[in-house]
Structure formats: C-alpha cells, structure tokens
C-alpha cells in the first residue's frame, strides 16, 4: 500500500478509532458525550471531567458480524481508567459474554490507550479492573477477545495486565506495552535503573516490536487504519496461537542491567 494512502490510527481520537474498526456506517455509540455520564470525583481534585469519561463504547459490525469496540482516549488524563470507564469496559465484556451464551455472539475489541488506573479514583477503578480481568477470562471461554494496542500512550498498569489475558493481541510498532511507566520506574528505583528521558531505550524495552518478537502479541501492525482493521478481522476469523502465560526464557537477572539487556538482544 502506498505510504501516501496510509491513514494514521494513532492520531485519531478514541471515537474515530472505534469508527475505523467497525464496518463503515455501522458505528453507533453507547453512553456517548450527551449521556453526560461524567466522573463526579474529579472537580473536588481540581480536574475538569470529560463527558464520556475518556472511554468510548460503540456497537456495530466487524466483517458483517455483530461487534462492539471499546476505545480509551489517551489524551484525557493519560487515558486513565476511572469508575465510569472501568464500568463501561467491564459492562461491555459482560454483555458480549451474555450474547455469546445466547448464541448471538458480539465480537469484542478493546482498543486500549491508557496509562492505567486513574489515581483520582484509585480504589473504585481497581475494583472495576478486577471485574475486567474476570470478564476477559470468562468471555475467552466462548470466543476470541481482541486487544488493539496502537495508540500514543500504549498500555500500562492494571490494563496491561488485563491485555495479557486477551486471546488476540494486536500491537503497533509505535505502541508500548509495560506494567510500570518509565517515569514511575525512574522515580521508584532511580535514574540508573531507568532514564525516562531516553525514549529510544524505552521503546526497545517495551515497544510493540519487542513484544511481538517475544511472542506476547499475535500480530504486529504499522500505524495504518486499513492494516489494523484487517488485523482485527483476521483475529476473529483466523485466531492465532498466543503462548500460555508461563515465563519465556530470560537471562540471569543478577547480571548487571546493561549486560542483562544485551543478553535479551536489547541495545541498552
């Protein structure tokens, strides 16, 4: 495909990403901005809430089959998940499972672009993430659960844990998949442990290319809407084998940090 025609997925809003992943004209948003279900906890903490709480749920079809895409907006509070966003994701998983049990499956895609749990709603959000984890494993018993990690933030924290529970994981080269963000690692363990300003290193250590190479993703895509759409359809039509959640071999952790990375074929 000509580069001139490639359309960036990462530059789209969450709403437009959901629109892009659903068949043309099939997009129907649920609990959108005008439902005005916004976080009641943020104003007291000096933050202006967003009308959709930074998570978009849209029904439609994918390849002609009933589908739902849940997309998080990385631009609102780093895409962090609060009570409402968490309830949207967990609720969509529960409804998809209900539909599958009834014999009318709804394909579910989690297009996550999130730094993790929203600090301002901590314990309500962590409870919802426990529901999300259970919801993914329960739905997985019946059909593929597809995660798309192709945004600017990537996926961190409890949502990264959740992503690893999905059966099909599509990552872009530009996305990062890790548990703790680089600034958090630097703050907690020092600059020698991780220099959060060394962006190329961050991508080598947690970027999509590495994750695909490690066997932690089922498909690696470039930042191209058409390519990602096709990958999502393939994930449902021809699901790939994702290795079980067991440790893949790694070098001796007692090695000095840079030596450890080199042994993992990561340039320190």
């Amino acid at each position, binding site marked *: 495909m000509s580069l001139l025609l490639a359309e960036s997925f990462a530059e789209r809003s969450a709403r437009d990403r959901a629109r892009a992943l659903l068949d043309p004209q099939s997009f129907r948003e649920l609990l959108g901005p005008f439902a005005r279900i916004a976080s009641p906890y943020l104003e007291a903490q000096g933050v202006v809430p967003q009308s959709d709480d930074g998570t978009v*749920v849209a029904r439609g079809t994918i390849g002609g089959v009933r589908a739902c895409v849940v997309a998080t907006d990385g631009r609102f509070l780093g895409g962090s998940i609060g009570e409402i966003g968490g309830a*949207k994701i967990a609720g*969509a998983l529960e409804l998809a499972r209900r539909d599958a049990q009834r014999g009318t499956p709804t394909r579910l895609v989690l297009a996550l672009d999130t730094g993790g749990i929203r600090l301002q709603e901590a314990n309500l959000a962590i409870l*919802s993430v426990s529901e999300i984890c259970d919801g993914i494993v329960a739905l997985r018993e019946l059909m593929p659960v597809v995660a798309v990690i192709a945004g600017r933030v990537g996926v961190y924290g409890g949502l990264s*844990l959740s992503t690893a529970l999905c059966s099909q994981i599509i990552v872009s080269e530009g996305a990062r998949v890790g548990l703790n963000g680089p600034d958090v690692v630097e703050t907690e363990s020092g600059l020698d*442990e991780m220099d959060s300003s060394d962006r190329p290193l961050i991508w080598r*250590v947690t970027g999509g290319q*590495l994750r695909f190479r490690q066997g932690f993703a089922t498909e690696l895509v470039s930042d191209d809407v058409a390519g990602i759409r096709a990958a999502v359809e393939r994930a449902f039509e021809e699901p790939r084998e994702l290795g079980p959640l067991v*440790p*893949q071999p790694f070098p001796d952790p007692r090695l000095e940090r840079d030596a450890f990375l080199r042994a993992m074929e990561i340039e320190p």
Partner: protein
Amino acid sequence: MSASVRGRAWFERLTAGAKPIAQLPASVLAADASIEGHAVRAVAVVPDPNGRFPRARNGQMGIDEGFGLATAVSGTPSGSAILAIVDVPGQSFGTREEAVGLQRALAASTNAYIRARRSGHPVLALVVGKAISGAFLCHGLQAGWIGALDDEGIEIHVMSEAAVARVTRMEREDLARVAREVPATARDIRTFATLGGIDRLFPVSDPSAPSDADVAMVVHALAEVLRNPSLGLRNPRERLDAPAALHTRALSRRVRDELQAAWDA
C-alpha cells in the same frame, strides 16, 4: 523500605506447620493446610532478600512472584479451596522486569486465580498488610470472599503513599482532605470496606505476631466461609450488589444498566 513480616507470620500460623510446596521461588509460600477440616491451599508472597531480581527483594510482586503464584494456584488439589494471604507493597519497579514483561507475570497469577475459581475452587483472601495495585489485582482481588485485619497498617491503593505525594505534589493534610471527600482515594481498610470490597474485618491484638486468640478467631471465620462454598466462588462483578456497595457503587451499576439498555436497543 523495611520488609514486612506480616505475610509470613499469618501464613505460618494459619497453615500450622503444613509442609510448604517445593519448587517455588523463596518469595512464594504455599502449603496445603486444613482449616477445621476443610482442605485449603494457602499462598503468600513474602520478602526474599536473596531474590535474583534486585528490585523484588522486599516482598514486591515481581517476575518470579507472579509466575510462582500462578504455579502454586493452578496446582491446587481437587476439592481444595485457596486462601491468598496478602501483604504486598506493590509491584517491582525495574528495567529487567519491564523487558521480560512483568504484566504477563501478574496476568499469569490473575489468570490462575480466575480459572481456579471458575472451575470450582472457592477462593478466599485475607489482607494482613499492604495490598497495592497490580499486586492486589493478581493476588487477592479475584477472591470470592475477602477478609482483612482491622488495622491501620493495612493499605489499599494503586500506588505507595510516597508516590502519590510525589505525583500530586500535595501535602499529607491535603491528601487526607481529598480522601475524606473522595473515598476511592483513601488508603485505609475501613474506607475500602465501604466500597463493598471487604466481607469481614478482624480486630486483632497484634497484626505482625498474631496471638492464639487472633488466629482462632480468623480460623473460625474462615471455616464458616468454607462451609458455604458459594461465597468463595463469587466473581468480582457480584461485589457490585453487596449491601455495603449500595451507595458507593451506584454509579457502576447505573453505567451497567444504561449500557445494557442502549446495547439492546
């Protein structure tokens, strides 16, 4: 950060000398015990100063701990319940961990607990110390029944107190004020219980070195829960309907209801 002794203390008292499961990392304790006649596999994550990952020697949930827990939990004998004894200050913060994929290690443990519960093993959790973030998600929060010590040393949150202060650049008093206005940001166990996350609180005389009376009280309560296996088999979604969550999680329920109505419209 000084390493906590609570997890090991409670593990040893509750398993009363049962032989630990071998072939696990030294930071993962597991043993098949009996609680008033009920078979229970107890699991805990504890500090290991000799751990091979330098950033996971203080009881943090790291690579070895996440995968080790998964092994221990998924090996639970048929007919046995599972008891997660929780005292984890958080996840380990290191480059090695991120490169290896710490999210997968925690997912492995989470997955093991969920699959065990869904296949009929009642899963109970007892929070005796800290229960922070990903560590609590992968060790404790998938339990159908969660008890906790009624003690100020219990902390439930998504980051350490020091980290919250750094990120928000707020003083303790301001954080305390926010915690009063927004219970979801409070760290103490009693406030967390108001969110419907805790089934039972245990006032004890010494949380780090439980007395015989403390242990007897907890054992008796656990046995009562085990006599009603459906409690340990509940999934997290069911916590939404807990009496304690009537007001505090009304919004979560409302979103579910409205989502369903729109989905089916």
